[in-house]
């Protein structure tokens, strides 16, 4: 049952990563590059400013929507009885539930990517004054396409959640509820709650690593492009909140 890698092995695996990081920082420091040459195009553009960035986002949303639909189609609309599906297997989920799970994950991810698209489109719209290669038509089309994508992903998510509720009526999700996740968690039994605790703890650990990586990336961005204080401050606020909530909960539990 011991599936974890030993700490010494883990440390050895980290060494090349640290070495690569050190090499990049050392190279940048030694080469005397302070800023990226201004004639280099870093706006991910082909025809218009940032069109490649939005094309990548649009392609991601479309791929995820199609995958989500496919997963939903693969999930039978009538849930099979538990004994029919599992028999005496050790598997935690049936093939139908696996497809449904995939659809749930994809619908969640596509909503995030679609909202990222509209957020970027809106922020670009708000700051397009100094962009020579950013026609109004492209701007409007981009905003319109982002809005349409949000409508589609939300419809798809509603359909996916409906299917989920059909499979698990005792722990139905209510998309209209403000406490959807909390209400859903309360309906789980102890084994399922244990799965959620473990997943949340791993997510918390990963979040700390990612926030650190994000901050280092912003420092690199500042070194190569321009000073970016706002993202660094935002990341530090999120980091403080993340750690703060963790300690608040452990403190609460120890004082009960």
């Amino acid at each position, binding site marked *: *049952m011991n599936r974890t890698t030993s700490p010494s092995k883990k440390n050895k695996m980290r060494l090349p990563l640290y070495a690569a990081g050190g090499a990049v920082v050392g190279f940048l420091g030694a080469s005397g590059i302070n800023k990226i040459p201004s004639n280099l195009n870093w706006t991910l553009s082909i025809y218009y400013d940032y069109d490649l960035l939005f094309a990548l986002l649009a392609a991601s949303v479309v791929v995820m929507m199609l995958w989500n639909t496919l997963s939903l189609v693969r999930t039978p609309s009538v849930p099979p009885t*538990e*004994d029919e599906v*599992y*028999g*005496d297997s*050790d*598997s*935690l*989920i049936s093939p139908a539930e696996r497809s449904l799970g995939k659809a749930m994950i994809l619908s969640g991810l596509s909503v995030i990517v679609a909202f990222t698209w509209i957020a970027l489109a809106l922020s670009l719209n708000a700051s397009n004054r100094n962009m020579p290669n950013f026609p109004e038509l492209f701007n409007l089309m981009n905003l319109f396409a982002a809005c349409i994508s949000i409508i589609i992903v939300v419809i798809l998510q509603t359909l996916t959640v409906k299917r989920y509720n059909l499979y698990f009526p005792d722990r139905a999700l209510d998309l209209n509820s403000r406490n959807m996740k909390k209400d859903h968690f309360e309906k*789980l*039994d*102890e*084994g*399922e709650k*244990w*799965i959620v605790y473990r997943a949340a703890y791993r997510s918390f650990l990963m979040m700390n690593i990612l926030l650190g990586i994000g901050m280092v990336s912003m420092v690199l961005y500042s070194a190569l492009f321009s000073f970016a204080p706002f993202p660094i401050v935002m990341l530090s606020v999120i980091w403080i909140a993340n750690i703060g909530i963790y300690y608040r909960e452990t403190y609460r539990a120890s004082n009960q």
Partner: protein
Amino acid sequence: MEELHNHVRELRARDRLSQAELAKLIGASRQTIALIERGDYSPSVVLALKIAHVFREPVEKIFELKGGD
């Protein structure tokens, strides 16, 4: 280090119960039974007592600590 082992699978086979049926009897999900049988999850005292009640066996006969010093 001592580890918790259980005989839920054997007892379930003895009583010809499926995971879903056992789950229903103790008010848990089938996933939880599968987790317990795989040894991934140690159930709470309440759940262990419910399982023992279904199999009409003492808890220590179903769950036991193995290994260690």
